[in-house]
């Protein structure tokens, strides 16, 4: 359903909703996966992002997102300089990603200390994004909701344990997806929530032994 606010909006730094606002949101999502300030980032640009990204400020927008700036933040313009000052080391590369990808796609590898996250995301128009891969797992995340991400061993009872932890705090789940690379292998779980997961629920979830890479990512759109 199209809302009048989808048409009159977003408020954003120009020049392109797909190449600037959407790119910024992919950067924000990558930052969310790291749960803190990234120390280094490798940004690979694919398709139209690689061809015309510089002129559209795609590079500045992604780095701005990594710094925690939203699409309407004028600091996006100076994000490369601000990143250098903040000690965020950024490397850009043009790439041709394998498989089917939207023309406006980037793969971002962010690091902080020993933590690393690799995220592939596409800017699919009007500033909307779709995250298609997290750490090698194929996913479909829009960032339009607060998102809970974790990797779980393939054992029974995970969904029940996590949804109980959320339900006990009154945290409502909007959508839920589970995908695994192979049977018996780890699976990635994506929960889109109506409100960010409460601290208490996160505490309970973090204590579940079969889980790793537990991340609560704020709404970015």
């Amino acid at each position, binding site marked *: 359903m*199209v*809302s009048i606010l989808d*048409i009159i*909006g977003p*408020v954003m730094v120009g*020049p392109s*909703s797909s190449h600037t606002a959407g790119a910024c949101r992919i950067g924000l999502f990558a930052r969310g996966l790291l749960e803190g300030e990234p120390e280094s980032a490798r940004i690979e640009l694919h398709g139209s992002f690689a061809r015309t990204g510089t002129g*559209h400020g795609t590079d500045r927008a992604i780095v701005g997102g990594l710094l925690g700036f939203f699409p309407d933040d004028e600091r996006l313009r100076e994000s490369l300089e601000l990143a250098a000052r903040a000690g965020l080391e950024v490397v*850009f590369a043009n790439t041709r990603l394998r498989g089917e990808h939207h023309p406006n796609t980037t793969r971002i590898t962010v690091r902080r200390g020993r933590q690393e996250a690799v995220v592939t995301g596409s800017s699919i128009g009007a500033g909307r994004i779709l995250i298609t891969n997290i750490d090698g797992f194929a996913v479909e995340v829009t960032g339009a909701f607060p998102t809970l991400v974790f990797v779980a061993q393939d054992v029974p009872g995970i969904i029940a344990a996590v949804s109980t932890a959320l339900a006990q705090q009154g945290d409502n789940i909007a959508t839920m997806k589970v995908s695994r690379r192979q049977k018996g292998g780890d699976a990635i779980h994506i929960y889109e929530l109506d409100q960010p997961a409460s601290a208490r629920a996160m505490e309970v979830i973090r204590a579940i032994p079969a889980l790793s890479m537990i991340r609560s990512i704020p709404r970015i759109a």
Partner: protein
Amino acid sequence: MFDSLTEAVERAESQEISLGELALRTEAEQGLRTRETIEAALTRALEVMRQAVKRGLPGDLRSVSGLVGGDAARLAHPAGPLAGTVFTDVLASALAVQEVNAAMGVIVAAPTAGGAGVLPGVLLGIAKHRQVSDAQMVAALATAGLVGAVVAVRASLSGAEGGCQAETGAAAGMAAAAGVELLGGTPTEAAHAVALTMQGTLGLVCDPLGGLVEVPCVYRNATGGAMALAGIEMALAGVRFPIPVDEVIDTMGEIGRTMDVRYRETAGGGLAATPTGRKLAKERLVQIKGKRNETG
């Protein structure tokens, strides 16, 4: 929202309300957001539009490539037959917003960033010459949103999908309906303004130099505003376009779907593919790449 503008007009006329009021009521009834939230968001959009015009008019901004900037300031001293009228203020405001956009300033995508100058250009240009309240402006933005939503469903709002007719053309149609209601016209007149405006932007290609939202995008926002003024003027005078507005919108969609890929934001045809277009894009892109290597 609605998938037929004709249906929306019938509903608004039968309830004796404007299309803007209908849009605000319908969206609140659909339950995603409250009316207060929607009006607050549109009020913020209006403020950002005003700031963008103000930021762009002095003419000190340059785009990322350096290709555009400073033309809104030239319209401060118009010398043509329409100098000092709504017409030149619409052109100036539309150029100003789009120059801000090209310089990575803050704008409201309406419906897209590439077409963001048309709607503020028309509404703020009219407001400069008429007594208009903020509440009327917010309702006019809702009118524009309703028209854009119909175009999104029936055709497209993306230059990559449908050419510039889907961006500045759709924006002009949205601005025409909003302008008619701002000036006290009826929903029926607003719909005819959309049809009269968009029949004039049918087939418009998306051919930006180097794929950048600069040339001709900045100028197309100004001419998009002019097209909207033509639609508003004819509709308020009682001109009725013979083809129903939904069919005009469908035609835009059909033309977009069959438009050669060279004319859909790929910089493969149109002005982008002219000898000068290619030369400028090459020079400027090389220059930007150089800049990035220094800073990145």
